């Protein structure tokens, strides 16, 4: 099932996705809560091609995790309303029954979660949990499954895998646990890995190791990855394309270079601007985005970023559509009414890209 990796093209070069692995169209997820209807995801669409790394960027409440979990059907519950389409290799996932969805999970699409400390069951040995994943999908004998587990642990760079396979999770360090999670995810050789903030809970040096690992798996095995993160540095390292989410909506999407060097949405400018860069002199004052993310129970009318945007004008009361507004980049879409020329000017704050504090 391993697709050929891209022909040595470095990450970030403008590749148009062949969109043939995962197609998400107009996905909406709403939860009925005591306080009302919570619109966690509102009309999000994107594609992931085989061997591609798509980064979904956003902060808490942006809906990125809910989107990822919905792809796997993990958000199904009596109080959840899910609309839209999720097609994986031309198979529609949203209508599948639980038993059919279980076939897809782990085998075709695997997921790795944020906190490796709590994502492994503490009472079972690590090897056993990997074997459990393998044997729930196929009838391999226990010995063979165990060999595969050891092989996977080695593939993710865990030293002495033959003995570590019998360790309990608490005997692993954080970085190793995350590697073990990845090993477990890859045991059945899925074609898509969804990594939900895989390195956020880890130290910076371990984070670098995990990101490197994901990159290697993508290049060597042609593994497609959806990387959920709020860390733009990590995005810059390995993503091919980027989707920026805010308050449940997609506000900008494009290739890596497009997003970093020609961002079109003020929220993206804000995110880029509030990053501290070690290779540049430090600014006097850290640029910030004023205010708080909006309530998902009662989102603002019109553009959801309007209350925090210093550039809001009359038209912003009309909800902006997600469109490609640059003729030379038909795949680069954003949700902001300002013209491209205005955007180019407004985003320049003291020589770098950022969000002004006042218009």
């Amino acid at each position, binding site marked *: 099932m391993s697709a050929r990796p891209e022909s040595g093209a470095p990450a970030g070069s403008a590749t148009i996705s062949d969109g043939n692995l995962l197609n998400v169209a107009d996905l909406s997820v709403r939860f009925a809560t005591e306080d009302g209807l919570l619109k966690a995801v509102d009309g999000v669409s994107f594609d992931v091609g085989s061997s591609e790394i798509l980064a979904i960027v956003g902060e808490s409440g942006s809906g990125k995790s809910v989107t990822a979990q919905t792809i*796997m059907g*993990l958000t199904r519950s009596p109080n959840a309303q899910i609309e839209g389409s999720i097609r994986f290799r031309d198979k529609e996932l949203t209508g599948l029954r*639980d*038993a059919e969805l*279980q*076939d*897809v*999970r*782990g*085998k075709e699409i*695997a*997921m790795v*979660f944020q*906190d490796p400390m*709590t*994502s*492994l*069951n*503490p*009472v079972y040995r690590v090897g056993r949990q990997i074997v*459990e*994943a393998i044997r*729930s*999908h196929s009838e391999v004998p226990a010995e063979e499954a165990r060999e595969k587990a050891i092989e996977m642990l080695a593939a993710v760079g865990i030293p002495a895998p033959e003995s570590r396979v019998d360790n*309990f999770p*608490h005997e692993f360090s954080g970085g190793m646990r995350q590697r073990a*999670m990845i090993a*477990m995810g890859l045991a059945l050789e899925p074609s898509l890995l969804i990594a939900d903030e895989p390195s956020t809970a880890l130290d910076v040096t371990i984070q670098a190791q995990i990101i490197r690992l994901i990159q290697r798996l993508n290049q060597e095995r042609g593994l497609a990855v959806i990387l959920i993160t709020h860390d733009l540095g990590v995005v810059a390292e390995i993503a091919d394309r980027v989707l920026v989410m805010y308050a449940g909506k997609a506000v900008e999407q494009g290739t890596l270079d497009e997003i970093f060097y020609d961002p079109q949405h003020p929220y993206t400018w804000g995110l880029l601007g509030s990053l501290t860069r070690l290779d540049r002199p430090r600014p006097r004052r850290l640029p910030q985005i004023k205010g708080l993310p909006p309530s998902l129970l009662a989102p603002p009318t019109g553009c959801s970023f309007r209350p925090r945007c210093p550039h809001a004008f009359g038209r912003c009361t009309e909800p902006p559509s997600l469109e490609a507004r640059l003729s030379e980049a038909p795949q680069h879409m954003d949700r902001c009414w300002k013209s491209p020329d205005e955007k180019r000017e407004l985003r320049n704050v003291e020589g770098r890209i950022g969000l002004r504090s006042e218009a």
Partner: protein
Amino acid sequence: MGPFIARRLVRMVLVLFAVSILVFLIFNVLPGGGTDAAARRIAGKNATPQLIANVRKDFGFDESLPQQYLTMMKQIFSGSLVSYQSQLNVMDQIKQGIPATFSLCIGAAIIWMAFGVLFGYLSAVHAGRLTDRGLTILALAGISLPVFWLASILIVYLSQKIPIFPNGDFVPFQDDPWQWLVHLILPWTTLAVLFVGFYSRVLRSNMLDVMDEDYVRAARAKGLGEHQVRTRHVLRNALIPIVTLFGLDFAAVIGGGAIITELIFNLNGVGQYAAQSIGNQDLPPIMAVTLFGAFFVVLFNTLVDVAYAYLDPRIRLGTSAELA
């Protein structure tokens, strides 16, 4: 493991020692107790002072308290302890009561664990729905019904008014297995109802907590069927605290704590013996039964700790390291 067991043995000796001192002191300090009252009771209603003095000499009541204590302890360990009241050997009496107590407690324990876990599991899995609400009501009823009331009601309705079950008494297993069983059904029910209610509530709550854990979500993401997720991951982890509870509850009942049940059903077990001795303010049996009970509590405490370490590999026996 070795040092751990050794440490626990030492602790057991210390606990039993402390308990024995306490019981001895309490007996000798309570009004209506003490050696004077005991002597008078042994001597009988129309006792003369001379008779009482003789009794005192015979039973060693004139010696100092520490000396009396030592004598009693020696008698316990040599099996020669004799009741003040009935002149019968205390150890023999206890031995006679063990089959009944053990039959009652072990049988009830099996029942309460089986139903407690079953009801708790169903309640958690169907949380918020009709099954859950129904089981919750049953559980709360079970916890609220006093043992003495329940026992009496069961006897009145299922034994006297409608003669399905016998009225009480214990039939040893060797004599008649079927009758042994039939005689125990009502006592088992009585003893188990309280615990079923309690355990099902605790398990329900634990399971609901575990269901929110990340590793359950990760298990689903692996593609495990819902049933496997529930049994292998949720139930398995939720049962761990139940083990602790069980150990302590079981120790309490088997050490002679099922007093009311034994009394009402006239099972002549250790608990009933204890109740009678307390009524007679008869120190030797009280002391022996208390030590008997304490022994089981400490033993089961230790077994529970060992089981816990086996069930939850994060727990290590003995070391007190706290690492960030």
